[in-house]
């Protein structure tokens, strides 16, 4: 099949907004779902979380980070180009209820994917406290969108160029000062951030949901590559997740599994081919 690219632009360095025409997906997508994309006929199937959609226009938005070969191919696409595979919505949606007060933490591409979650939680009557975290101010995006769906938006940057200077370890203190105790914490972002936040909230007893991002192939519960250990049990992120309780995950195992294909995919990127000119 062929899916038309409506928009692909770098919104902050190395992060791309990616809008694709896929009416069947747009019709049924929910917060927390993901899609699987293949950039061209020789391409790999890679999962991307959904960050927004327009049901009338039949389009779906993701934010992706250029890390390796497949995302580099995506980053070269222009509006009007087509890609051969765009399938979804996959995975279980994030559970949306009136929990009371919810902390939504987003970093990296997760700022995008947690946005529809925050919006749905707000619509469900929650007090929504959004925390956006980045290394520096120039890596933040969609702040205005968060203001519309949050009771309060907190910004943390490593270098202090915007919002609070520091890291996610300061979130409990930040919330305490604002007099906020979340009934639920949801984290979308890079693996390291989700792990760190789970470690921070565990001693506090804050229930924490993370949106896991293992390597995937089919995304339909067939191949088993997306398995992870949750509460000592084997779970499959594409059909049992990708949302799981962050306090139950075997993070060490998870981090190791995500690196399975680094020797093939990542290491070659680090070697320059200049030598071949001599």
């Amino acid at each position, binding site marked *: 099949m062929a899916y038309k690219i409506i928009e692909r632009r770098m919104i902050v360095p190395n992060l791309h907004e990616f809008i694709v025409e896929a009416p*069947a997906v747009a019709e049924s997508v929910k917060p927390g779902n993901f899609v699987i994309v293949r950039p061209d006929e*020789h391409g790999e199937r890679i999962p991307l979380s959904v960050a927004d959609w327009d049901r009338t226009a039949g389009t779906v938005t993701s934010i992706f980070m250029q890390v390796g070969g497949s995302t580099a191919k995506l980053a070269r696409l222009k509006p009007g180009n087509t890609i051969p595979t765009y399938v979804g919505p*996959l995975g279980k949606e994030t559970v949306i209820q009136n929990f009371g007060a919810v902390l939504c933490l987003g970093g990296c591409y997760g700022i995008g994917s947690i946005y529809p979650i925050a919006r749905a939680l707000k619509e469900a009557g929650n007090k929504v406290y959004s925390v956006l975290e980045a290394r520096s101010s120039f890596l933040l995006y969609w702040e205005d969108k968060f203001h519309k769906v949050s009771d309060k938006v907190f910004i943390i940057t490593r270098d202090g160029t915007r919002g609070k200077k520091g890291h996610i370890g300061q979130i409990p203190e930040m919330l305490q000062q604002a007099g906020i105790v979340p009934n639920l914490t949801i984290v979308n972002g890079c693996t390291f951030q989700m792990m760190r936040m789970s470690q921070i909230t565990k001693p506090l007893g804050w229930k924490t949901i993370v949106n896991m991002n293992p390597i995937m*192939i089919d995304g339909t519960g*067939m191949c088993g590559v997306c398995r992870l250990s949750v509460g000592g049990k084997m779970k499959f992120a594409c*059909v049992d997740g990708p949302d799981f309780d962050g306090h139950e995950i075997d993070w060490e195992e998870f981090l190791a599994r995500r*690196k399975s294909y680094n020797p093939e995919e990542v290491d070659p990127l680090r070697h320059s081919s200049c030598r071949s000119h001599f």
Partner: protein
Amino acid sequence: MPKQTPWERIKNFEEVALGYPIETAVEEASRCLQCKKPFCNQGCPVGIDIPGFIKCIVEGDIASGVKKIKETNALPAICGRVCPQEEQCEKMCVVGKKGDPLSIGRLERFVADWEAAQGKIEVPDMAPKTGKKVAIVGAGPAGVTVANDLIILGHDVTIFEALHECGGVLMYGIPEFRLPKRIVNREVEYVRSLGVKIYTDFVVGKTRTVDQLLKEFDAIFVGSGAGLPWFMEIPGENLNGVFSANEYLTRVNLMKGFRFPEYDTPVKRPSRVAVVGGGNVAMDSARTAIRLGADEVHLVYRRSRTELPARIEEVENAEEEGVIFDLLTLPVRLIGDERGWIKEMECLRMELGEPDSSGRRKPIPVEGSNFIVPFDAAVIAIGNSPNPLIPMTTPGLEISKKGGIVTSAETGQTSRPNIWAGGDIVRGAATVISAMGDGRIAAASIHKHLMNKE
């Protein structure tokens, strides 16, 4: 049948068995006694008129042979290659009582390949349009069979397939060297040419649910196949370098990982591989590992050679290609290095005891026989549960303890009206031809239902 020599074929992914030349086919066909009451037919789950098509070969009228087979089997080039014939049609052949039975599967393959070589495919007589709409979930052998039968009967048929290619296990599981993918594509294109609409990248239950489809379609057939791989539930199974057979084979077959980096999906090329299991899936994984350049591939199986569930032909092929069989061996632990990669496997020796419920002698561990073997990869090929997606997203569907959809054996009907199911989603891992047999039964039942309902 002529084959590529083992030393040639371990270096390529081309088909191993080369097929009959026409002279051999006619000679083989001439051995058929044309029994008045043939037993062979009864062994075929789709009831092919076996003496009928064999007679056509003897008479040199291959085109009529094709027509005969296609009356009941839309995928002869596939069945002729992967059916466990020795357990089915050929087991029942009377000639087999005294010598070798007729090579029915090979003749079927010959006829199908002959037709393809002619370049023009006969289209069967189509019934007038009924105006009834049927949706099919999954383009595996079960779904494709139902589509074929119902389009010929005049219904409007749409297949929804989750992956980007059709064929199910035929595409992602069974390797190129046993079933070339161009043959699967050819058979799928044939069904499409009859007017079946096919949507790939469409996950029923997610993109749209069965209940949403029921608003638009008069009947639904679920052929969503096998799903989540089983693991042994021993320590170390989530180490890097440990794969389910489905992952390993999907990377190689569907995603063409054996041509990485021309294709983007990587596949590991380890040097010492353990494949755990003894069925067709295990043989396919072991033979794939050999072709990917492994120095040593061990097939680790807890019973003895006689109990291996794989087809004997495939066991022999694997042996010829250098797969080492560690029989009566049970893995108990996978041991990793400090970076989380598998480096060793701890096993126990087994001995055979009394027959168990499956009628096979039960393997019993020999106390204290533990030993450790170095491996840098393990492929777990011990089976799958039915695909969980449709059961998870279709309320009211009766599901068995093992996770499969429950159907009536006579009709393929599920516990919910207007929904039928068949193939691996009902049986658990079974065979191509049994999935097709289920498809035929369901198609007949759907047809009857649609024509009675006005």
